[in-house]
């Protein structure tokens, strides 16, 4: 009797698995897919999402339309909550950045964090470079750090928020070398660059695409790269490791997440969709034009990356005396 029941259960189980496998292969969205982003229209993540929508349309990868939904506010907290509320909706995904990991560490207001969402796929790694003005006396990062060691607190770096990567790499370098320099936060990327070009600060961390034209015009010089290996656009500037500084650089990621209980077959569909997207010519061109690094990873890999980034951020924040709330 018992044996028969087990056999039945096993049979039902096998059937269920088979059914799931079929569904797995077959599921496709049947109505418009919402992509939730944490910036208003025109913000970095919003522009990426709109570009992705256009590429998916152009390459005919999706049977339905995709649309960008803006949920700005709270460094990702508002958007995270909006995705979380969708529970098991198969037609919602979200685009995250490293800000979603950094934000909750320093602000207690965020009830829902990136850990409450389902990781789908990693998309991009955003590289960055260290730049100085073309007429700066610092030819290498070492020159800069030596002066910062000899005269602590006199040199200045322009950057974003105190929790941003700009400051993280500064903290790590200071920690590793004993040098000290000022970090001046500016809200917008334009202001940061203007401060460097105007000679009001000595160094900045800048995106390679943004730096490229300034270098070509002879306005700034790139002295090091915050990358694993040298970028195609900057064959002559050493990576931090090559320059002799083996420090945490904490990758800046852009990735895809989904509501927490999204059915596995739907999540698998999106992971595959972005895996396909990354091999298209449109995507390659986008990465090249914006001088980004390919950063595709699967859901489980993304989960690991997020955990790793959070661990590094926590360490550096604590070192820097920034209050970590969770």
């Amino acid at each position, binding site marked *: 009797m018992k044996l028969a029941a087990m056999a039945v259960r096993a049979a039902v189980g096998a059937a269920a698995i088979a059914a799931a496998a079929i569904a797995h292969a077959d599921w496709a969205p049947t109505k418009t897919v919402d992509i939730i982003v944490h910036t208003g229209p025109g913000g970095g993540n919003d*522009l990426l999402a709109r570009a992705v929508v256009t590429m998916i349309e152009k390459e005919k990868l999706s049977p339905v339309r995709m649309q960008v939904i803006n949920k700005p506010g709270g460094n990702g907290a508002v958007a995270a909550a909006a995705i979380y509320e969708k529970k098991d909706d198969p037609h919602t995904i979200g685009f995250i950045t490293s800000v979603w990991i950094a934000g909750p560490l320093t602000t207690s207001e965020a009830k829902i964090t990136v850990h409450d969402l389902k990781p789908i796929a990693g998309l991009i790694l955003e590289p960055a470079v260290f730049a100085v003005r073309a007429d700066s006396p610092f030819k290498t990062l070492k020159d800069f750090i030596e002066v910062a060691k000899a005269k602590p607190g006199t040199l200045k770096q322009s950057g974003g928020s105190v929790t941003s990567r700009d400051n993280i790499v500064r903290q790590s370098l200071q920690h590793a070398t004993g040098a000290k320099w000022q970090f001046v936060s500016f809200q917008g990327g334009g202001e940061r660059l203007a401060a460097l070009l105007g000679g009001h600060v000595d160094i900045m961390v800048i995106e390679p695409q943004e730096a490229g034209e300034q270098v070509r015009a002879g306005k700034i010089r790139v002295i090091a790269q915050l990358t694993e290996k040298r970028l195609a656009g900057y064959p002559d500037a050493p990576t931090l490791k090559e320059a002799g500084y083996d420090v945490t650089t904490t990758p800046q990621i852009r990735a895809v997440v989904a509501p927490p209980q999204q059915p596995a077959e739907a999540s698998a569909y999106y992971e595959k969709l972005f895996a396909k997207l990354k091999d298209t010519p449109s995507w390659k061109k986008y990465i090249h034009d914006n001088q980004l690094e390919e950063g595709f990873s699967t859901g489980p890999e993304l989960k690991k990356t997020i955990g790793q980034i959070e661990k590094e951020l926590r360490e550096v924040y604590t070192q820097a005396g920034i209050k970590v709330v969770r």
Partner: protein
Amino acid sequence: MELLAGLLHGFQVALTPAALMMCVVGVVLGTVIGVLPGLGPSATIAMLLPLTFKLEPTGAMIMLAGIYYGAKYGGSTTSILLNVPGESSSVVTCIDGYQMARKGRAGPALGMAAIASFIAGTFGVVALMLVAPPLARLSLAFSAPEYFALMVLGLAMVVLLAGESLTKALLAMFVGLWIATMGTDLFSATSRFTFGQAELLGGIDFIIVAIGVFALGEVLGALEGEKPAEVLPVPKGWRNLMPTWDDMKRCRFAFVNGSLVGFFIGILPGAGSTIASFMSYGIEKGFSKHPEEFGHGAIEGVAAPEGANNAETGGALVPLLTLGIPGSNTTAILLAALVLWGFKPGPLFIQDSPELFWGLVASMYIGNVLLLILNLPLVAVFAQLLRIPGYMMYPLVLGVSIVGVYSVSSSMFHLYLLAGFGLLGYVMRKLDYPSAPLVLGLVLGDSMEKALRQSLMMSGGEISILFRPIPSVLLAFAALLLVVPLFKKFNAVRVQVIDKEA
């Protein structure tokens, strides 16, 4: 000669049927989204960006720029007619524009807004064409200490925005400054006045406060009137719809002021059109022979800020096109658009892509003419809105305000905020507190605080950095602005005393 050749080439590009078409589409779309409160040019451009991939880049840029400056034309419409600021740069237009409408001069106010926009907008393009590179270098000389002084000067203008009581104006301004501190602090990642709400981490959007305090406050105030809400007088006849020759003469200085202040503030990456419009309004009132008319429907109070926010467009394109530095949200999106189309915005952009630069400049001349032709007849149409009686008008204002705020963030929380600020506006009105200083404090407070802290971080805590040449001059002006009314008051008292003794 090179300039003429460039411009000639530009007109050849901009006058092709396709480019002309894009220009028309851009400015019409710009006017429409300018009229709609909430929805601004940056959001519209971002949403249209994917469509432009299929277009030829010069035409696409002409269209997006048309949306950018077209919105500045449309922004004044609801400010004047409904006291609902259509764009953040048209908030200050509410002050005198709405009063003009209440006095039956909605037509001249709308007409003057279009004319001032045209004059200053065209000045902005001329200046962009002639002096872009040297001015771009000047804008780099501006850094945190200079911005701080500029913001202090702006705040000192509260004296000029005050009504009867300077004390009440200052109190309102401090509330504005307080609201400006809300959200996550950039320098320490600390939350300030968020009351545990994740929605407040990003601070409070200034346009929500402006719409709440101006528009909803007005509606609530009108609701409690015992007599049925007044129907605003509607001007009849073409002559009464347009500014008179006298109006034009009165606004001579406002045109110059708006053009220069707007363009100059525009080239500074850290300022913006809202600040430009406030500054030029303050200057206009400060130098006016009849400052007492401001706030009660002075036409210069419409001409100066509306001019300034249009000249600002030309100014803001200077650092974008000559240095590759975006100064505002909208220019940042234009920059992203250029990259997406395969251009390389930066110091060599004009040299590398003369066709796009000169085509854009030429199209802006054409666009401004088109906008004038488009907007003047619209005055007659919009002025008819005032025929609507209060029991329909006020719900309409309420609806427009709510839709405007919701369309930007699709957040219920922002609607609660809107309601809260509407109540605040009502209470302030009852107690005779002016609302403009509150909005001024909110606009300038955040930038001022950041600039001060950046300055001190740069100097390692040395306050002397605030007394470099440019900031010193600006701070001296601010001090003058604050002290002069005291002397006037003192003088008035002295005259009274002498009169009594005599």
